[in-house]
C-alpha cells in the first residue's frame, strides 16, 4: 500500500535579498507515501529546514505545488494553514521549544486548546501522550527541571497529542548525546511502526538516519544520489 501522503511538484523557493534573488530550490519534486519514515541529510545550508517548513505549511513556495493527501496546501490562506497544521502536523525541533512557564502536561496540552474538547478529554489525551513517551511521572515538572532527553520527549508528546498523521522533526537529536538520542529515535520509530505516523526527519547524524526507512540527500537545493555526494 503506497498511497501518497505528500507530493511536491516543481517547487521553487527563493528569497529576494536587496537586488539579488537567492534560490534555495529551483525545481524540487518529491513523493512521500503514507507511513513512511524519511531521513533527510545534507550539508548545512542545503535547504533542509526550508524543505521541512514547506512540508509543514509554515512557509510557502515561490512556485510549484505541494499536495497533502491529494489536497493542495500551497494555495491555502494563513488561517487555513493554521487549522491544517493543528489537524495534520506535529513538529519536533532541535531545541525542544517548550514554554518555560508551563509544566510538561500543560505544554503537551497546548495543541488541544485549538480543539473542541472538554477539560477532561484534554486531560485524558495529555495523559495518553505522556504515556507513549514514558513520561507520566514527570507531568508536573517544568522544562528547567528536566534533562534534554526528557524535554524532547515532552516535545514529542506535544507533537502527537492531537493525533496528526505527519511528524516533522528538524534535527531532533542534534542536542543530545548518543544514548539519549537513541532513546528518542526509538520513540520516533515506535510512533512510525506502531501508530503509523508518517515521519520526515532532518538530521546530520548517519546513525540517526539508520532508524528511518530511507534516506534522502539534499545538496544545493537538489536531491542527489548517495554515490554522487560521496564522489
Amino acid at each position: 500500500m503506497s498511497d501518497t501522503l505528500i507530493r511536491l511538484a516543481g517547487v521553487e523557493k527563493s528569497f529576494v535579498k536587496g537586488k539579488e534573488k537567492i534560490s534555495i530550490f529551483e525545481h524540487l519534486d518529491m513523493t512521500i507515501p503514507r507511513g513512511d519514515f524519511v531521513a533527510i541529510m545534507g550539508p548545512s545550508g542545503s535547504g533542509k529546514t526550508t524543505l521541512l517548513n514547506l512540508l509543514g505549511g509554515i512557509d510557502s513556495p515561490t512556485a510549484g505545488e505541494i499536495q497533502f493527501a491529494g489536497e493542495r496546501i500551497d494555495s491555502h490562506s494563513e488561517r487555513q494553514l493554521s487549522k491544517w497544521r493543528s489537524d495534520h502536523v506535529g513538529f519536533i525541533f532541535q531545541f525542544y521549544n517548550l514554554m518555560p512557564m508551563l509544566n510538561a502536561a500543560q505544554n503537551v496540552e497546548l495543541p488541544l486548546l485549538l480543539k473542541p474538547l472538554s477539560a477532561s478529554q484534554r486531560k485524558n489525551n495529555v495523559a495518553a501522550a505522556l504515556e507513549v513517551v514514558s513520561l507520566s511521572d514527570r507531568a508536573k515538572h517544568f522544562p528547567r527541571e528536566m534533562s534534554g532527553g526528557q524535554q524532547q520527549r515532552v516535545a514529542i508528546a506535544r507533537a502527537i497529542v492531537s493525533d496528526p498523521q505527519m511528524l516533522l522533526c528538524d534535527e531532533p537529536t542534534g542536542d543530545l548525546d548518543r544514548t539519549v538520542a537513541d532513546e528518542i529515535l526509538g520513540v520516533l520509530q515506535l510512533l512510525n511502526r506502531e501508530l503509523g505516523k508518517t515521519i520526515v526527519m532532518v538530521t546530520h547524524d548517519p546513525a540517526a538516519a539508520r532508524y528511518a526507512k530511507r534516506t534522502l540527500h539534499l545538496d544545493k537545493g537538489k536531491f542527489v544520489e548517495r554515490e554522487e555526494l560521496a564522489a
Partner: protein
Amino acid sequence: MSDFKLVWKNLMRRKLRTFLMLFAILIAFMIFGVLAALEQAFDSNASSSGDRLMIVNKINFTQPLPISYVQRVRALEGVKQVAHMNWFGGYYQEPRNQITTFAVDPGSYIDVYQSEFEVPDAGRRVFLSEKTSVIVGKTAADKWGWKVGDHIPLNSNIFSQKNGARVWDVTVAAIVTPKKETADANFIALRYDYFDETRSFGKDQIGWMALTTTSAAYNDRLVKQIDEMFANSPYETSTDTEKAFSKAFVAQLGNIALMVGLVVGAAFITILMIVGNTMAMAVRERTREIGVLKTLGFPGPRILKMVLGESLLLAVLGGVTGMLIAAAATTALRGAVGNFVGGLAITPVIMVMGAVMMLLLGLITGLMPAMSAMRLPIVQALGRS
C-alpha cells in the same frame, strides 16, 4: 488550561517586572481617583449654585461685611432675595469633629437655598420662630444620631459668647437631605440673630451674601452695580456668580488640583511609555515562543488577543487596586476637607472614567506588540538554529 491561564502565566513569569509595572499603574490611578474626586466635588459645589450671585469682601472672603449692606442690596432692581451668612467654625464635642456651620437669617436662607434641599414644613415653622433652633444636614445628623427636637451643644473654634462660653445650645428644627447626591450634608445652619446677640465680638457683621435675581438677565448688571455701590467705602465688595465664587473659594486647592492634574498627566504618559515599552520587550523576548504557538496552529488573531489580554489584565489589576486605594483615601480625606469640599467620593462617573482609562491604557500599551506578534512570520520567529 485556558487562554486566560496562559495569559496569566505569561504575565507572572517575571514577577518583579510585573510587580513594578502594577505599582506604577496603581500610583497613577490612585492619583487620578483622588484628583477626580476633588474636582468632582468642587464642580458639584460650584454648579449647584444655579444663578445665585455671591458678594464677599473685596480683600478676601474671610473679611466681614456690615449687615446694613443686606438692605441696600435687597433694594436694587432685579434682586429677588438676599441671604447672608457668617462662618461659625462649628464642631461637636471635639475640634476634629468639624461641621460646616453658618449663622443665617432663616427666612432668606431658605428662600435662596430652597433649590438645594427641601425643609419640611413643620421644621421650617420652628426654624422661623425659635431663636435657638437649627437646620441640620443629614450626614451630620446620621453621624451623631441627632433627631428633631434634640439639644446640641455646638462649639465654635472662632467665636465665644459674651459670658465666655464657647458652646451654643441649639435645638434641631429639621434634618434636611440635599437634592444632589454629591452635595455636602455635613452642615448646620443656626440663626444669625441668636448668634449675633450672644457673640463676644464682631457684632452686626456678616461673612458674605448670596442673592437670587428675578431673572438671570440682571446678573451681569448687578455684578457691576453692587461693587460700584460700595466702592470707596471701608468695606468694598467683590460680587460674582456663585459658580465663580466657589471656584475662587477653592482657588488655593484649585491650584494644587491643577498641579496634581499635570502630575497625573505626566504620570499617565510615563506609565504609558513604561508599560508600552515593557510589553514590547516582553513580547520580543517571546518571539520564538510565539513562533512555536503559531506552528502548533494558533491563528494570528488569537495570539493578538492573548497579548492584548495580558496588557489589559495588567492595566485592570493595577487600575482597580489604585482606584480602591483612592476610594479609601477620599474617605479619609472627607473628614479633613469636608468643610471646603462637600461630597468627596469616588462617584460612579469617576469609576466609569477610571474603567475607560484602564481599557485605553491596556489597549494602547498592548496594541503594537500584539499586532507585531500577530503578523510575525513563523519562519522568522523560529529563527535559524
